[in-house]
């Protein structure tokens, strides 16, 4: 079962949160940002080409024009493949782990899987980002030596930066599944 709700990101950009429950212990939460707009793409391309044409008129060297085309193409490819993140999703599978995926505009997906034994907790934290204080969701990783300690903090949804209302939804969904694993060891002792 899937449901979708609209929220705002920290910068005021509209984002969409999609929740899917695959089974009792498996949930997928995906935050989708806005797609690349045609008008901003055309604006940037026109600006670069106008500048190149101006340089060409000054210097009478046609290399400037080919260089501008080349730069635009390479810049667009780099932007789509390395910079523009379309969707960030979180797949929580109780007893296996948490998988964090970022999908780029060119279709590339970069995935990290964290095993459940390493996950201490999922919390909402505050941080100072540029001139704002924003909330962000993060996974706390267990320190193998110190049971109370935290070895690493993995921030989630870094590119879309949802606001607190969206984060609370995601937090509640994650905690429902994480709670299940805390009760399981007790039933082992009962046996």
């Amino acid at each position, binding site marked *: 079962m899937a449901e979708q709700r609209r929220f705002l990101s920290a910068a005021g950009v509209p984002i969409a949160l999609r929740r899917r429950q695959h089974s009792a212990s498996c949930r997928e939460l995906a935050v989708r940002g806005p797609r690349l707009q045609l008008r901003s793409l055309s604006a940037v391309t026109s600006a670069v080409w106008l500048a190149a044409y101006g340089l060409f008129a000054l210097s009478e060297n046609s290399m400037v024009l080919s260089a501008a085309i080349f730069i635009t193409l390479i810049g667009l490819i780099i932007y789509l493949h390395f910079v523009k993140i379309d969707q960030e999703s979180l797949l929580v599978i109780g007893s296996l782990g948490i998988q964090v995926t970022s999908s780029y505009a060119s279709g590339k997906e970069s*995935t990290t899987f964290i095993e459940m034994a390493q996950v201490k907790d999922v919390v909402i934290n505050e941080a100072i980002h540029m001139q704002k204080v924003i909330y962000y969701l993060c996974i706390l990783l267990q320190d*193998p030596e110190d049971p109370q300690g935290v070895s690493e903090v993995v921030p989630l949804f870094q590119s879309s930066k949802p606001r607190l209302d969206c984060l609370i939804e995601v937090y509640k969904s994650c905690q429902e599944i994480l709670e299940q694993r805390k*009760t399981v060891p007790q039933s082992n002792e009962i046996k």
Partner: protein
Amino acid sequence: MSLQVTAMVLKVFFPSCCSSADSGILIGRWISEQNSAVVLAVVHFPFIPVQVKQYLGEVQRVTKVSVSVLGSWSNSKQEKEESLSEFLEDLGTIFCHEPWIQISKEGDSKFWSCSILQKHSKNPQEEEIILVYYDQRKVMLSHLHPPLDTAGQRAEDASKLSAIFDTVARSQVLFMTDRYDEGPIKLTHWQSDGVEASIIVELLKQASVPACMLLTFLLSLLSGICRSRVLKFWPLSFLWSKLSTCEQLGHRLQHLQVISSNKKAQNQNQLMRKANIFVSLLIDVALGILLMSWLYRKNRIGQLADTLIPVADHVAEELQDLLQWLMGAPAGLKMNRALDQVLGRFFLYHIHLWISYIHLLSPFIEMILWYVGLSACLGLTVALCILSDIVALLTFHIYCFYVYGARLYCLKIYGLSSLWRLFRGKKWNVLRQRVDSCSYDLDQLFIGTLLFTILLFLLPTTALYYLVFTLLRLLVVIVQGIIHLVVDLIDSLPLYSLILRLCRSYRLAAGVKFRVLEQQDGKPLRLLMQINPLSYGRVVQTYRLPTYSCYPRDSWASLCKKLFLGELIYPWKHKGDKQN
């Protein structure tokens, strides 16, 4: 103590190649700490239970993996047969395994039904089952890399995934039985489609053993010659240590020794290192031969030799002009005439000597270059090192001037600092390593002050010469440094690992990723486990080959301090050189 009826989750790792297998029993490994079952193969009917147990015992002995019968698998193409399901349950009593997993597939449906039989559990709980499909061949061949920062700590606390990878990798002997073998037991698991061997690959494999032995013998001869006493006499050993070509050749010799050793690689790291060295050598030699063929075509060597002498002449002329400028009023500064003339004439004479020496060599240059160019076939790195050495030899006079200027300046600075202390009535106490006050006699003070004044007013002249020659020397050092950086890059880049990451990315795994497949209510959760390959940056970091040189060992601050005090700087020292 809360008695919550919670779902215990059981994970079944099922190989995707067995999805269309006929009915039978599942064999694999049960990992009780993680409540997961790794299915390795399906044994088909008919079989004799005793033989199956015997076979499993053998496999367990060889692979050290506790393989056992995990459950039953039924693939009914028609409707479900009642007798079959009872038969399968009865099997659970023969091969007693706790819990007994029953998976059944109807027709071509994607959604299988899984059930668990637990005989010895006191409180029956609803177990949720997760079915994870994995590609047996890829998991068997891949090598899991732990995260870099925690490599030491996590060694004992082996991650769960590595247990699964380990199980599949170590059970390789199980996968060797072919489905067409005539034996008491018929298995389905990943099959290799026959050894992909072309005749050439087989011949190469056969020929590699004697080739390795020959190479080892030749290398031992060569290293014996290198270590012989003849080459250890003072002028020769000094020369060998200064020429970077010899270092590079020694380095490559070491690499060849590593490749041609007869010991098989113990683990993944050694195998990758050998492969990386081999590919790196191959590419190096190929590029070197390419360079050689370009150089020797159209008599480029002759052209190079013809331009070498005029270039050396031109450099010498420029230096002479520079010195004439320094001897006049450089940049409007007024120099001390006498000292200026002495230093200027001294350096001019040196340049004159150098030019005569170069002219003496000029008839032989072309022949020397021709023979030296032949050594480019040993590799591009050797050619670049020769280039760096030629640059060093041609600018030897700049190095000499730098040393003279630096020594003079250094002497002056030390003299000045010591006489400055005398001027203030203090002295350096060598015993206590500190500055102490001291009472001087009048004549000591008089001579000290006189000398201090002389040195102080001669400082600008010496400082200017020092500055000019240091800048020239730094220029040469930078050029040599760039060449060495390129050589190091070629030496240490793990090309085989990068190509492997490009073409067979599942071999180098950073972890796994799961994809959720179509679900149906009431059926177990279906996931697909795929291998998450290492990023290129980590591949280079993990597998880069060690090099013999280390980068600027002085930080910027100490470099500036040395320059100011006039100490000689050698920023590109090699590892293993004694510290000054």
